[in-house]
């Protein structure tokens, strides 16, 4: 159970104008500007949930993760995770969480990955039996049996990321923070990572909080989304809610036999060529089932699919709506 209430965090950043004169001046008097990384962030996450935490760069995602993992102390506000305040009971708190920072590495650079794993085992005092079992499961699920004997410096990014994720789960954390875990990965590795995250969420009931810029991650993994922008939570809801909130337009893609599709007035044709048509309709005026019924009655349909608004477009338009 994670509960944040009115969390605020402000950073002071040294600032100076360009040029030699300004640089000389800064030697004697530094000017600071305040950056309000988080202003009044509140939310609640139940055990076993899988949350997509999204927002543009600089919105405050990483700051929130750092506060929840006990690395940063907020200026004000309350944060309770499994009944503990992270920055006050850091040692006990971190024993129950796993963190993957996609842009940093926790593996020791010049020793085989398995040595890093053993170090992590000792750091978290994981009992030998449990360690062996977890290691076995993780190596199998993430398919890293072959690569754990290689030094981390010789791994590809995808291999390394799988090892990083394994490393953060060796101590059976109840909560897993994934900060951009798929950044820079190829399609195959991304899918492997997603499948794995899904599996542990389902089978172990691990609460997963995922920040990402990859909308496919969100689509594949999370049911609930928190959108943060300019340090505030803007939206909290399911992906479906977000989609429908934004748009009632759907695109029907139809493959059929025949010359041209007979259309209803509510249908808008984007493309209709050689038995392949793309039709946009407003679901408030015409329901999807009615549209499909009409089309299949009028032509011999080979294939038909319905697509909502592309999720990338959705997020961009949400960012615009909130003027981020």
């Amino acid at each position, binding site marked *: 159970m994670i509960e944040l209430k009115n969390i605020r965090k402000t950073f002071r950043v040294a600032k100076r104008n360009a040029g030699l004169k300004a640089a000389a001046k800064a030697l004697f008097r530094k000017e600071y500007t305040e950056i309000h990384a988080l202003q009044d962030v509140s939310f609640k996450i139940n055990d076993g949930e899988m949350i997509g935490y999204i927002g543009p760069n600089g919105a405050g995602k990483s700051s929130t993760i750092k506060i929840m993992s006990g690395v940063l102390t907020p200026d004000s506000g309350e944060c309770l995770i499994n009944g503990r305040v992270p920055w006050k009971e850091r*040692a006990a708190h971190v024993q129950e969480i796993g963190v993957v920072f996609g842009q*940093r590495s926790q593996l020791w650079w010049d020793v085989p990955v398995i040595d890093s794993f053993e170090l992590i085992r000792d*750091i978290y005092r994981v009992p030998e039996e449990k360690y062996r079992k977890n290691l076995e499961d993780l190596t199998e699920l993430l398919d890293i049996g072959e690569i754990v004997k290689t030094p981390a410096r010789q791994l590809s990014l995808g291999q390394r990321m799988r090892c990083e994720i394994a490393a953060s789960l060796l101590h059976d954390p109840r909560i897993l923070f994934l900060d951009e875990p798929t950044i820079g990965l190829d399609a195959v590795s991304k899918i492997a990572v997603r499948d794995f995250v899904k599996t542990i969420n389902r089978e172990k009931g691990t609460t997963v909080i995922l920040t990402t810029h990859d909308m496919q991650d969100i689509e594949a993994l999370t049911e609930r989304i928190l959108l943060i922008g300019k340090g505030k939570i803007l939206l909290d809801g399911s992906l479906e809610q977000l989609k429908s909130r934004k748009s009632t337009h759907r695109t029907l893609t139809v493959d059929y036999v025949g010359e041209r599709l007979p259309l209803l007035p509510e249908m808008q044709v984007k493309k209709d060529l050689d038995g392949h048509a793309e039709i946009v309709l407003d679901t408030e005026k015409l329901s999807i089932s009615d549209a499909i019924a009409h089309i299949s009655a009028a032509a011999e349909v080979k294939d038909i699919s319905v697509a909502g608004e592309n999720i990338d477009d959705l997020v961009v338009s949400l960012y615009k709506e909130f003027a981020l």
Partner: protein
Amino acid sequence: MRKYLSFFRIRFLAGLQYRAAAWAGIATQFAWGGMSILMYRAFYQSGQSAFPMEFSQLSSYIWMQQAFLAMFMVWFYDNEIFDHITSGSIAYELCRPCDLYSMWFVKNMAIRLSRVVLRCAPILLVAALLPAPYGVTLPASLEAALLFPISMLLGFLVMVAFSMLVYISAFYTISPNGVRILVTSVLEFLAGGVLPIPFFPDWLRPVMYALPFASMQNTPYLIYVGHFAAGDALGGMVMQLFWVIALVLMGKGWMNRALKKVVVQGG
């Protein structure tokens, strides 16, 4: 405790990988030790009586210094720690159920010791075979032989505890280089790295002995070569113990303060 041992182990093993660097280091240290001894020989030939140590004691001092250089070298820092602070990777270390100060302390000990292990034996072996006043001799007495290892350990802890302060300063300065250069040059001098402390003028020595730097390499080596009589040796070791405790307390206090207002850099 076990986690810190594991930390020590992984860093120690990683340090042992760099064999070529060790051979290069051994060669350099031989050259340096040999040159120093030849230089002092020229001075000593002009008159023995003006010097505070016998020439053979001085040779031993220099060879010990070269053999255990990695334990006490003041210019050496673990760049990984600076990187972690300046790049923000420290975020990972902060979400471990460990004390960061102890973790870094152990890491530093491990990396320095791994270097010494590879280097000290060949240097000592060859230096022991050199003809009499130029080589390294056995400890000056049974007492010296017993006190020397303890004093080495204490001196090593003083060294590491002091370098921790330099690491912690990186939380405040972003670029640690300025502090490092300043500290290195002053420290090398005051620790007896350039010139053994007994060679300094009478009025300056008390000041140097009051500072923590004399408690690093100076005390154990002077015990080894027999420059310190039993009473002086114990006094020196009490001083060492005092500085270990004082520097560790200072470092821990400063680190806790730094972490409270830490800004993890980047992303």
